[in-house]
């Protein structure tokens, strides 16, 4: 794994929406290959916007977004805040979707689809439709769908925000295990300090709208991380530091972009 060329590079990126809302930036950002980075910020600060720009779902108003291998379909996996599954399709077909769109024949795709469903613990639910699943299971389907193309970069937009704490903790651990096993670059958007510190190598704290990066924390923790880390004083101390930075960012006085 080379660290020379970053997986994601943002230079002077801003986004102004049609209505004149300055949502983001200017933002400069390098995300190394294989890194687990969290974007942390108050609601409405432009986190989703940043993620959509990285995914290429929206174009920046100014600046440049470079994503390694982004031209290859399936190189970027995206998990939305809601599960965003096709309600008419079975779990299997939902996960098959990215491969189907890439022209992979059903027979050739099924082993990969099934392996990924087993990976997220849904091997017994391949024929279920989304409404027959719990919220956490839907989220795992969404995760499996993002992973099935073996993307280089995984973009997650507050994927576990709507879940209860127990489920969230379990999915956090699942995600960490996936990251360790598969070595993807992960950009994780959240508004939870605790989640960001627990999961990531690096936490980027954003200011209120228009979002810029106000502080960067390199999180030190044992590898692999687990429940022991979550209850350690070390973890608590780092959460406190990030929290303080977030509170400071929230009342940033230099909000020149707001109209």
């Amino acid at each position, binding site marked *: 794994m080379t660290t020379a060329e970053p997986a994601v590079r943002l230079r002077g990126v801003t986004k102004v929406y049609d209505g004149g809302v300055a949502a983001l930036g200017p933002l400069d950002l390098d995300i190394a290959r294989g890194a687990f980075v969290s974007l942390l910020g108050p609601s409405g600060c432009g986190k989703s916007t940043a993620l959509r720009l990285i995914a290429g*779902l929206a174009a920046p108003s100014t600046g440049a977004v470079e994503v390694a291998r982004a031209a290859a379909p399936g190189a970027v996996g995206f998990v939305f805040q*809601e599960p965003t599954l096709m309600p008419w399709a079975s779990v299997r077909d939902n996960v098959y979707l990215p491969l189907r769109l890439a022209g992979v024949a059903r027979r050739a795709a099924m082993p990969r689809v099934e392996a990924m469903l087993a990976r997220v613990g849904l091997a017994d639910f391949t024929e279920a439709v989304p409404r027959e699943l719990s919220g956490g299971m839907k989220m795992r389907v969404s995760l499996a769908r993002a992973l099935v*193309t073996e993307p280089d970069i995984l973009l997650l937009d507050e994927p576990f925000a709507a879940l209860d704490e127990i489920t969230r903790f379990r999915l956090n651990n699942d995600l960490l295990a996936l990251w360790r096993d598969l070595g993807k670059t992960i950009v994780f958007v959240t508004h939870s300090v605790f989640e960001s510190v627990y999961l990531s190598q690096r936490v980027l704290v954003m200011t209120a709208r228009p979002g810029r990066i106000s502080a960067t924390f390199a999180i030190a923790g044992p590898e692999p991380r687990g429940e022991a880390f979550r209850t350690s004083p070390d973890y608590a101390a780092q959460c406190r530091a990030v929290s303080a930075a977030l509170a400071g960012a929230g009342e940033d006085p230099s909000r020149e972009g707001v109209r």
Partner: protein
Amino acid sequence: MTAGAGGRHPARLVLPFAALAASLVAWDLIVRLNDLPPYVLPGPGLVLATLVQDWAILWQSLAITLVTTFEGFAAATVIGLALAVLFSQSKWLEYCFFPYAVILQVTPVIAIAPLLLIYLPQQLAVVTCAGIVAFFPVLSNATLGLNSADRNLVGLFTLYRASRWQTLRYLRWPAALPAIMGGLRIAGGLSLIGAVVAEIAAGAAGSGSGLAYRIAESGYRLNIPRMFAALLLLSIAGIVIYMALALVSHLVLRRWHESALGKDM
């Protein structure tokens, strides 16, 4: 909601029939007590007897009307869905041509029918009328449905570089199915109405032998019981069409859409 979930409670099945029986008895009593002659108001027994007695004629007419209805409905479905798909591919096409669909919709078909009967062979004109009436709900519902796919799912398809065709086939079309089914259910009943209206217009022009023509003809001959019998057949045909389409809709949507799910699911 309609075909699937209902009917579990016995009262829901029994009550409508009880109400029907009561109104039939009331009808019969009114006719008997007032000693009304059949050309003013035939009793239910006489209507039924006429239905049986004239069955050969009425059945033939019903078949003709149903064929017209079905052809009009099929044409409306094919053309409506095709246009909706085109509109979903190009906003410009939609802006250019949707107004004409609205014009066709707001112009009463009874006013268009005589014109069509001049320009087209009779059977084709009648089918066209049925189609015109049924076409708008198909088009407008399908257009709405095709445009209401989840925004994030559309984003996902973009992310995976889906072609227009793939987006239509795997996302927009299935997402539109509930709306399309709703449109078809309305269109089924409307195409029957369109067929009847056109038959009446054509009947005045001379030939024709559909059920509506029978009604008009019986009217001229003051054969009121037969009018009632034909009317009864028309209503039953309408109900059957609606229920058949509701059933199709239920079968298509049953696994995933809220409208087709029982309460306890």
